[in-house]
């Protein structure tokens, strides 16, 4: 049977992708940000998951305003990196484990999560930047990737509690799939950032650190936080953090924090990163 062994929380700032793609990661502005992922790259090389279940949000790229799914599960054979206005990122195509994705889709719907199945989808920086941060520059992604796109652009995003429970359902779905596969789940987005209007540039490191702390120690309580707290305290785009609850919900109640990194700034954003392992793993 497939086994979910660990979770990764990770920002997905587009400028990080640009820095990697234009080879300026050793500039003073970027070096400390990337330094915090050295251990992560080692870690994922050692864990070497067969499949990454990657929770992210589309930034009005694959989905325009005509159709806004709350949870969209990628079931296509592969996903091309999208042109977000400045040309597609020069990164490998993302390949799915299509049978596992279908299995998860069926399991989630029967578990009463009302997902949208996507049989064609391009993927934007929200998905490719975390892969780049964890795997570096590669010819092909070392893992198959099952994408779950969450609406966090049009209010309301799903609640933290719903995301947390979705994580539990994703775990059940993965671990009822009858192939011996090692799976790691990514929750992406955040941390505090506001990209728009007169309050742009908001950063709240105390809030971010408390979020990272409680992710390990008090995930159920943390998932009860109302949207307005994210919007007010972590910036209008900080509400992306709800996606980390899916990752956390998929893990054991008790987890070990393997690694943490926090850096300000990357463009407009506080970069946050955490690796959590199931104790049993």
């Amino acid at each position, binding site marked *: 049977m497939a086994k979910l062994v660990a979770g990764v929380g990770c920002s997905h700032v587009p400028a990080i992708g640009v820095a990697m793609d234009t080879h300026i990661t050793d500039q003073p502005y970027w070096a400390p940000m990337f330094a915090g992922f050295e251990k992560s790259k080692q870690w994922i090389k050692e864990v070497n998951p067969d499949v990454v279940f990657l929770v992210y949000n589309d930034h009005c790229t694959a989905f325009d305003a005509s159709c806004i799914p709350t949870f969209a599960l990628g079931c296509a054979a592969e996903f091309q990196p999208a042109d977000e*206005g400045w040309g597609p990122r020069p990164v490998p195509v993302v390949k799915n484990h299509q049978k596992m994705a279908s299995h998860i889709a069926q399991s989630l719907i029967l578990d009463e999560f009302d997902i949208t199945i996507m049989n064609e989808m391009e993927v934007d920086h929200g998905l490719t930047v975390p892969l780049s941060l964890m795997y570096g520059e590669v010819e092909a992604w070392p893992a198959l990737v099952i994408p779950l796109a969450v609406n966090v652009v049009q209010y309301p995003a799903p609640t933290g509690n719903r995301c947390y429970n979705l994580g539990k359902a994703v775990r059940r779905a993965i671990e009822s799939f009858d192939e011996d596969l090692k799976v790691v789940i990514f929750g992406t987005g955040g941390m505090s950032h506001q990209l728009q209007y007169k309050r742009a540039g908001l*950063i709240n490191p105390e809030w971010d650190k408390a979020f990272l702390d409680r992710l390990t120690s008090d995930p159920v309580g943390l998932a009860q936080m109302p949207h307005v707290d994210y919007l007010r305290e972590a910036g209008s785009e900080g509400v992306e953090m709800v996606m980390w609850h899916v990752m956390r919900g998929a893990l054991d109640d008790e987890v070990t924090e393997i690694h943490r990194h926090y850096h300000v700034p990357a463009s407009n954003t506080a970069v946050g990163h955490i690796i959590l392992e199931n104790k049993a793993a």
Partner: protein
Amino acid sequence: MTDKPYEDIPGTFVFDADRGREGYHLNQFCISMRLQKNRDAFNADEEAYLDQYPMTPDQREAVLKRDWNRMLELGGNIYYTSKLAANDGINFQELAGIMTGMGREAYRDMMLHGGRPIEGNRYKKEWGED
């Protein structure tokens, strides 16, 4: 009526359904900029290209003038308008420099020094707005 607990946050538009309705055609225009063929057509003749999108005169003027804050005031969302900005060679950080009125250098400098603090930036009343 529909609950909007976020309306007291200063300097911020929360993109809810009401804003989405207002900005629909503006945002659909902006997302069309993610394809090269549309960028080429728009850059060749902005007015003619915009005729395809039934936005309001104010929205159209905001696009033509690149009045980035006005676009948001009229229902635009940053993930859409940033695609028009990308067409103009403006990235997210430069766009924030414009929207905050700080200018590129001062904004970049603020970010390098830890960003805009949360203290004093939680409530409209802290900004002297009600």
